[in-house]
């Protein structure tokens, strides 16, 4: 909402307050000023030099001696002598030969900076002394475009007749436009008058109420039966009030400059005086108005009296609105109808047929009140938002209808030469009961934390036009009709607080015992995990929770099948785009898309994500708060590209690539850091997204964590990833972190022996299918507790071990906590281990 400061000044005198200070005060009071636009003043897009751009009057006009289309205008600017300027303004051309003129104009001297009236767009130019067809010219009379007021460049701007001559133009037409961003559904703040009322309370200054008194000035009376129209409200719930005023014999023409200027500065386009007046009063008072061409308001079949009926639409009923669109209504939408059919959508937009046009002679002016929620619904359903619907949607005071109608009628008399019918049609079935609140000023102290004296609280409320009466210690506060948003004592606390000014509040800290303190173990562990993974060289990513449903299909290598994911998907009803329409059930697509996007620029991607996945498990239940959606935390990792960055000591013509074992190395280290290395089980895994031979499933304490492996080549292709291993991990983070908590709880410090260990290598030949991890486990088990380490250091396949076999070489460490081990000890241990693996796994000692 844009409001020129000059307009506000008409109702509350703010001339002495610097604009920055005014803005600050408005901001603090919750009337946020988004932007300031200066017109003509220093700092404006086009400042008007006060010495060179001034007011003047054209006294006489003569034909230019050497040019048919130009004239010479004699201009009085209160200088030594009138200045003669050359101009092609059509309106002055028509006045050639006149010498009795007093036309007030904007006058610019050489050196003034103006917009070029003939250039496309807004090009600044400095006015120079010149000769035009032999006549000297060192000044000009300006068009609106040259001053930056509008795009009108054809003719010059005329100022009102009472404009003083020879004063800086900025003092007459300069202005500051305040752009408000007012949050909340406050109809009473959607107008110049409403803002002025707030400023009057904020600055303790009187408010001029004359715009509300037009009905008295015009001598209007309200009646349910006006002779010129029959009114009916079929649905009083949705239409608490409907007034109709008749203004006869108007002349439709352009509005005067001042009115056009105000509309423009408020962001509206002038159309004609009648439409402009309805808009002007809406901006001024906040009451949307609609002008019907009275001649187009029909009587019902067989009747003679024009009739307006406010009723709900029949489902499917149609009408063409002012913007030329054919609209279809449902049975919740409220229509203004005449004797024959719809003429407007209540509170939103009028119909095309009854629109005021150039030949309109009599105007039927509607000033009504509609239920704000219904108007909002209609506006949303029809996707049709107008100045009227947005104001009605924020709740307009029904008491405002009549004063606003009178105000508009008054202006139509003044600016369109009309005559008002003294009787105004007024149906008011929804007159609100006066509302009173018992308000104890102690409540303000309790919530605000400072003591604002009772009298001061009363003064603030009265300044905001609340009625305040003493009722014992409390006040009985009557709420003005335009403040229906105020229903609770706490609402009055806000009024007291904001007018008192939060800049005057001290700051304190909560002076109460702390609530029982709790750890958030889940978050602590999650953050620890992040630190561990970052320490292991991975970058953290956070991807979009909303994904492309196609990605759920693409992570299965067979287009005919889909991956079995838990629960039912959470799908959006109104997605921004199909690619963002599904809540992820797996972190895999996010990881793959991140890899794809980064591999365009980088040769190495090593990332992880910790985040929730979402799937429906059952119905929602607002009573218990159960959303019926499971949101477990998951962990993903992805490694692909070169293993190590290029380095000068290593040949880089064929750099090694990250693969499954790099990922497993990270996982081994992670499990070690989480003390889970002793309780983890590895097995071959089967997951459709993965390479069938390069996928492991991992469990801790017999609970499955998830899988890791290399991506299936077809899935890799489906995500446009290059032909190189893409190692991926997909785990359930809650399972992992719960296990880590358990491991931590059970953890006891291990042995640290002062005796030197004995090292020995052991090569065992086993079947190709025997997993290495089982051999290792068997060694450690058989050698317990003296075998402290069994590290696999070589895997050999070939003639020496025979087909279908492999040799696994382990480096063993033997160590006792309390003595040095003898050769005999070691021999015994070795025999025990070999026997165990022979028996358990069919292994044999290599070379034996």
């Amino acid at each position, binding site marked *: 909402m844009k409001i020129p400061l000059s307009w506000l000044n008409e109702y509350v005198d703010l001339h002495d307050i610097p604009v920055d200070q005014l803005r600050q005060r408005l901001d603090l009071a*919750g009337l946020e000023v988004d932007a300031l636009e200066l017109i003509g003043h220093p700092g404006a897009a086009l400042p008007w030099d006060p010495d060179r751009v001034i007011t003047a009057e054209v006294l006489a006009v003569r034909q230019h001696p050497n040019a048919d289309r130009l004239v010479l205008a004699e201009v009085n600017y209160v200088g030594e002598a009138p200045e003669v300027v050359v101009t092609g303004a059509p309106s002055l051309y028509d006045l050639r030969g006149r010498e009795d003129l007093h036309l007030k104009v904007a006058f610019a001297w050489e050196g003034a900076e103006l917009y070029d009236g003939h250039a496309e767009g807004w090009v600044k130019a400095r006015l120079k002394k010149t000769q035009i067809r032999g006549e000297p010219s060192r000044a000009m009379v300006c068009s609106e475009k040259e001053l930056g007021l509008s795009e009108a460049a054809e003719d010059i701007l005329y100022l009102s007749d009472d404009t003083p001559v020879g004063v800086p133009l900025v003092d007459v037409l300069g202005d500051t436009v305040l752009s408000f961003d007012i*949050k909340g559904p406050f109809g009473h703040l959607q107008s110049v008058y409403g803002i002025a009322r707030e400023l009057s309370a904020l600055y303790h200054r009187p408010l001029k109420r004359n715009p509300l008194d037009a009905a008295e000035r015009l001598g209007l009376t309200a009646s349910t039966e006006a002779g010129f129209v029959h009114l009916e409200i079929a649905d009083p719930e949705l239409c608490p009030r409907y007034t109709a005023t008749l203004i006869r014999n108007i002349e439709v023409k352009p509005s005067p400059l001042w009115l056009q200027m105000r509309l423009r500065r408020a962001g509206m386009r002038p159309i004609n005086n009648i439409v402009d007046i309805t808009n002007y009063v809406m901006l001024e008072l906040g009451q949307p108005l609609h002008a019907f061409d009275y001649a187009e308001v029909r009587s019902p079949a067989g009747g003679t009296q024009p009739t307006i009926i406010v009723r709900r639409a029949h489902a499917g009923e149609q009408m063409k609105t002012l913007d030329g669109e054919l609209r279809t209504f449902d049975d919740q939408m409220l229509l203004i109808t005449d004797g024959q059919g719809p003429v407007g959508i209540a509170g939103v937009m009028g119909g095309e047929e009854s629109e005021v046009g150039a030949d309109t002679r009599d105007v039927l002016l509607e000033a009504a009140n509609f239920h704000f929620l219904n108007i909002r619904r209609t506006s949303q359903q029809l996707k049709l938002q107008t100045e009227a619907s947005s104001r009605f949607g924020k709740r307009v005071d029904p008491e405002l209808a009549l004063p606003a109608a009178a105000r508009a009628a008054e202006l139509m008399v003044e600016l369109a030469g009309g005559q008002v019918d003294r009787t105004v049609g007024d149906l008011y079935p929804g007159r609100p009961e006066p509302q009173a609140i018992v308000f104890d000023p102690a409540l303000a102290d309790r919530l605000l934390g400072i003591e604002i004296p009772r009298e001061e609280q009363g003064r603030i409320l009265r300044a905001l036009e609340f009625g305040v009466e003493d009722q014992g210690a409390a006040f009985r506060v009557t709420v003005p009709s335009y403040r229906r948003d105020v229903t609770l004592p706490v609402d009055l606390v*806000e009024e007291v607080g904001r007018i008192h000014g*939060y800049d005057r509040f001290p700051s304190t800290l*909560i002076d109460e015992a702390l609530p029982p303190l709790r750890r958030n173990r889940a978050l602590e562990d999650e*953050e620890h995990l992040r630190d561990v993974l970052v320490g292991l060289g991975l970058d953290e990513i956070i*991807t979009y*929770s909303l994904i492309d449903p196609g990605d759920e299909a693409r992570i299965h290598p067979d287009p005919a099948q889909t991956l079995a994911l838990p629960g039912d998907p959470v799908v959006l009803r109104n997605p921004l785009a199909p690619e963002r329409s599904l809540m992820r059930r797996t972190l895999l697509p996010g990881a793959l898309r991140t890899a794809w996007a980064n591999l365009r620029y980088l040769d190495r991607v090593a*990332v992880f994500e910790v985040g929730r996945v979402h799937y429906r498990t059952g119905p*929602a239940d607002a009573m218990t708060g159960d959303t019926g959606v499971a949101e477990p935390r998951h962990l993903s990792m992805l490694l692909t590209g070169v293993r190590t960055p290029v380095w000068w000591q290593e040949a880089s013509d064929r750099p090694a690539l990250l693969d499954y074992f790099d990922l497993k190395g990270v996982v081994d280290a992670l499990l070690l850091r989480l003390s889970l290395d002793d309780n983890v089980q590895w097995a071959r895994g089967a997951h459709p997204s993965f390479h069938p031979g390069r996928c492991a499933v991992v469990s801790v304490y017999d609970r499955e964590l998830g899988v890791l492996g290399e991506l299936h080549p077809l899935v890799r292709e489906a995500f446009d990833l290059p032909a190189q291993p893409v190692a991926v991990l997909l785990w359930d983070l809650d399972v992992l972190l719960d296990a880590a908590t358990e491991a931590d709880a059970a953890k006891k410090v291990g042995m640290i022996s002062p005796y030197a260990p004995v090292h020995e290598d052991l090569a065992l030949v086993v079947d190709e299918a025997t997993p290495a991890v089982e051999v290792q486990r068997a060694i450690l088990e058989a050698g317990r507790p003296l075998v402290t380490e069994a590290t696999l250091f070589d895997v050999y396949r070939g003639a020496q071990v025979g087909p279908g076999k492999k040799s696994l070489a382990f480096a063993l460490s033997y160590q006792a906590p309390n003595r040095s081990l003898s050769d005999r000890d070691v021999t015994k241990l070795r025999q025990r281990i070999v026997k165990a693996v022979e028996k358990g796994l069919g292994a044999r000692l290599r070379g034996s």
Partner: protein
Amino acid sequence: MSSLEALEQVREQALAELSRAATTEALAAWEKQVLGRQGSMTQQARQVGQLSPEDRPVFGRRVNEIKVLLQEAYDARLAQIRQIELSAQLETEKIDVTLPGRPVVPGHLHLTTQALRQLYRIFAYMGFEVYEAPDVELEAYNFDLLNIPEYHPARDMWDTFWVRGSEGDSRDRRLLRTHTSPGQIRVMRERYPEPIRVVLPGKCYRYEQITVRAEHQFYQLEGLAVGKGITITDLIGTITQFSHLYYGADRGVRVRSSYFPFTEPSVEVDTECILCQGKGCAVCKYTGWLEIAGAGMVHPVVLQNGGYDPDVWSGFAFGFGVERPAMQKYGVEDIRLFYGNDLRFLRQF
């Protein structure tokens, strides 16, 4: 030539040879030749037996003197040569210390994680515990219970993603939370009748066209304190403390009146613009202030919906953006960088 003269000659020759030995190998050879078992001095010593008894003591003493002398000369020469050889070796082992080190690839925490942690830490100092609530929410929790009924104008403040399959009864309609505020209801219902001090972080979602300034997914951090004597000056104090710890103690804070349906009174809190130090610039719209939080006293209807009697209890709530302060601090102009996960961006933090 007397045997003593011969002995002196051996000494002189040995010393001359010693000074010529330039390597540890040559020195070792000299030692063997002179002081070794078959060495020239050993041979000299053996001659004692052939001398007359009166000459023996003199000769024997002299042999021993020379042995000691030669041994000392040898030790000195050895130390000297080792020093020279070590210097030569160190010289050949010289490297260009500016060559790149063996690569260790560091990982990085996402900028959002870093920002969230900073917020958690500051509020933990003030006794606020982290409480998490769901992303997929019930309409009732996101709106109705927060004093925002259907079609209420306040709903305009949040463009909402709705979940399919819950078109029916508004009680059970699901949506993606548009703010972290529904967590207020959840924590109150869980904790009643304890006093509360929590922060509620989380991903939020808005039906908004994606631009450099707006994302459909972003993080918020909500704060909630409920007690029996909590006031708006406590709110001002808490956020001021936060601002001092986050932006610095020299940065001013101001509190403005505002509107949120779930707080009454409602305020917004600004801090002096970090870019222009309060002088006014395009980022702060020439006001010198940047909005950091929306806040207010918990609306009595919301307290009631959480189970707390508003005549006995009061509370404040606030909501911070998570990305925006980081963007201002680091001059990030495009919010889409956060969840686009361009590693060239994330690795800068």
